[in-house]
């Protein structure tokens, strides 16, 4: 993927949510809007989290909603949502502030998205992203984070 990950169509800042399920729905809604996933994808993510626990919370402050390709992924895609009020997932000790949802159509093609997510965590960018309100700032930071 050479273009920027994030555009006005797949990013929302300061989103208000009721709980972790609502956070997943609103984050995955941006994937659906862009034609990356079917209507069922968000529900499948929620069912998986109910079944297995919050495996999508990979580090304090960040959740990466996703599920198997056969659960409604149409294309490889990503979205980013920052939460106005952070939400707790079951059994997690700190609340989630940013949600990066993605869809994958096989086991490998989304590699660049995963790399970007790992860089965000390893470079300590979660808090910075959680307070952002501008797409340009976000892309500057992620650009810096990746290089």
């Amino acid at each position: 993927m050479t273009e920027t990950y994030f555009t006005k169509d797949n990013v929302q800042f300061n989103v208000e949510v009721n709980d972790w399920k609502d956070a997943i729905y609103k984050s995955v809604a941006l994937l659906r809007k862009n034609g990356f996933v079917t209507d069922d994808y968000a529900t499948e993510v929620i069912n998986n989290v109910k079944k297995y626990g919050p495996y999508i919370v990979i580090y304090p402050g960040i959740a990466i909603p996703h599920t198997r390709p056969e659960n409604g992924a149409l294309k490889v895609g990503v979205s980013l949502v920052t939460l106005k009020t952070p939400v707790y997932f079951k059994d997690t000790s700190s609340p989630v502030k940013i949600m990066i949802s993605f869809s994958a159509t096989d086991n490998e093609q989304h590699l660049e998205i995963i790399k970007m997510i790992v860089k965000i965590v390893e470079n300590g960018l979660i808090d910075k992203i959680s307070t952002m309100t501008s797409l340009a700032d976000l892309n500057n930071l992620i650009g810096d984070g990746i290089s």
Partner: protein
Amino acid sequence: MLQILVVCGAGLGSSFACQMSVESVLQDIGVKASVDHSDISSAAGTRADIIISGKNFESQFRRYDLSMDLIFLDRLVDKKEIEEKLVPVLKSKGAL
């Protein structure tokens, strides 16, 4: 070669991210191993020497009588936690 399998619920996101952090830790400490990722339902039949997964999967793994070493993480992409928990296992296997 030592085989490490990283496991999560879907087998393509959280486990993939964790795999990258594990590979990075292995590189830092100079251990060569083959690392792969999968979802929990296909993990049961694995021949890996070490399984790494999230704390939330611990009870599910404990139900099986698995012979390999199991490591459970609070933070899947925390290199510090990975190193702390992986190093003793690698030493016990003579890989470090």
